[in-house]
């Protein structure tokens, strides 16, 4: 059987999800600019921006997460059969949604056994942690605890495949 030479090489190379995901990320790197625009873009500009947050925020968010959230969502954000994961499907569920909605949800509904008990800055830092864990790089500008400014940002999908050219919105091209 003919073996595609590149394939055999890749098969050996891909050891572990992180390596492979990096490769996938590289593959779609050119698409990042396009992704800044949400799929369900509102008719009126300005276009929402990708959020910025600092590594310190994410680190602090990791501490909050470990103490308050991990008991349900898992130490590695993996969720369980009856518990939503905060990676993978979480990205698909929240991508391109403005961050004030995520902030409002966490503020009002989480942690489940004591909703609304975390101070605003802790909630913001948890969001910074979730952004980092799902592939968004930290920057120099902190994520603001300001709902109006959060409304101008969307949850990114940094690993999404580039949009299909000349395709109808929301419909994959079919060759049949």
């Amino acid at each position: 059987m003919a073996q595609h030479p590149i394939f055999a090489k890749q098969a050996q190379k891909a050891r572990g999800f992180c390596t492979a995901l990096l490769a996938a990320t590289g593959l779609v790197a050119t698409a990042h600019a396009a992704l800044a625009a949400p799929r369900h873009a509102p008719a009126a500009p300005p276009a929402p921006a990708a959020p910025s947050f600092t590594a310190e925020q994410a680190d602090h968010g990791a501490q909050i997460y470990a103490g308050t959230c991990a008991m349900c969502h898992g130490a590695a954000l993996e969720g369980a059969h009856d518990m939503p994961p905060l990676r993978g499907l979480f990205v698909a569920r929240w991508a391109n949604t403005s961050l004030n909605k995520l902030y409002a949800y966490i503020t009002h509904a989480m942690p489940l056994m004591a909703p609304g008990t975390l101070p605003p800055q802790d909630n913001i830092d948890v969001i910074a942690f979730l952004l980092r864990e799902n592939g968004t790089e930290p920057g120099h500008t902190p994520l603001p605890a300001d709902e109006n400014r959060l409304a101008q940002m969307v949850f990114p999908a940094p690993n999404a495949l580039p949009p299909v050219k000349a395709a109808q919105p929301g419909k994959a091209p079919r060759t049949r």
Partner: protein
Amino acid sequence: MKRRNLFAASLAAGALAAGRKSWASVPEAAQAMGRTAPPGTVPALTPARVHADQIMDIKVCLRPFRPAGPRLEIEPVADKIVVHNYGHGGSGWSLSWGSAAMAVERAAPLMEKHVAVIGCGIIGLTTAITAQRAGMNVTIYARDMLPHTRSVRANGSWTPDSRIALITAATPDFAATWERMARYSWQTYREYLGLPGNPVDFRDNYLLSDTPPDEADHTEPAPDISKGSYASTGVPQSEAEFAKYADRIKDIIPAAELLAGADNPFPVAYARRKPIMIYNFGAFGHALLSDFYQAGGRIEIREFHSPSEVADLPERVVFNCTGYAARDLWGDKSLIPVRGQTAWLPPQPAANYGVRYKGAAMLSKSDGLMVQGVNLSGLGELEGVGNSMEQPNRAEAEQAVAVFEDLFSRFRPRRG
């Protein structure tokens, strides 16, 4: 008093068996063998009719054993992203839902609405349905539908750490990955309990032994160093090389209990009973296909000849659920075949239980009475390793059948 001097007898036998651990006291023996079933909880069992002239089918499968554990990775191929989900050894049925959830989790951040699944065995079907439940539109591309896949040539019961990985080849974090898969699968399978046709069910499995099922019986023989190991030969050479994880989930898996004295209906000295989860292929396959179609799924019969052919698919995210076929199709030479054979006799719903005795297993399922040699040669987990002979071996089937023919010829049904 129903309990007879079972343990006293075992003490005498144990004293005779050189090298075997002998129990210092009856309570110690009982503790070592687990909880004793309360008297009267064993129903009057109908003996199974197990004879070679009743064999109606012999099926052979090749378990896709991967020393490093199942392949769950993302790989770019042409302009597609392939999400691998294959190589589950003898644990594919058991781990399918959890493995599917992990594969879908890896694919979800790619944000694709239309995805492809290659393969329609148990891994392909559960992956497809899990992707649907995550909001994706799924097309399955497969050479064969489920009844012709290797999946339905298994015995179809909960065996989540059977030939799943080697201790030295699996990454340190695989144990936690396995646990997550197993727990997720177990919970998902419970959704199919109690449905019409019993796609998923439980059976009491009777573990029988003529000798005390003590440590000596379960201690693996010391590895034969002259044979080498997986590291030196590329194939596992001793049972001790296989990773075992069952203890990680024993909090949710029903344990075995001892049947003492007159409560033991079998003509053997030692019997334990353990409820096991089973999959009735016909009913469960039908349930899965119905779920898949009702959620808008499509199936296209198609054979792939090389990985580059995924470039022809309209979908950009492709789940690779090809099992042992991945060895040739995807060039994964780390896959080691582990041959397994099951013989099928007509269904015997009156004898609705399983038995394990003398290296053979019997399991009463809705689509037949399954008889399998699981350890006839004494090789344990090494039985069938490296053997890719997919033709039936009638002599082996009859050898396994003979174990139960002998057992039930000595069986004296209790009068109701």
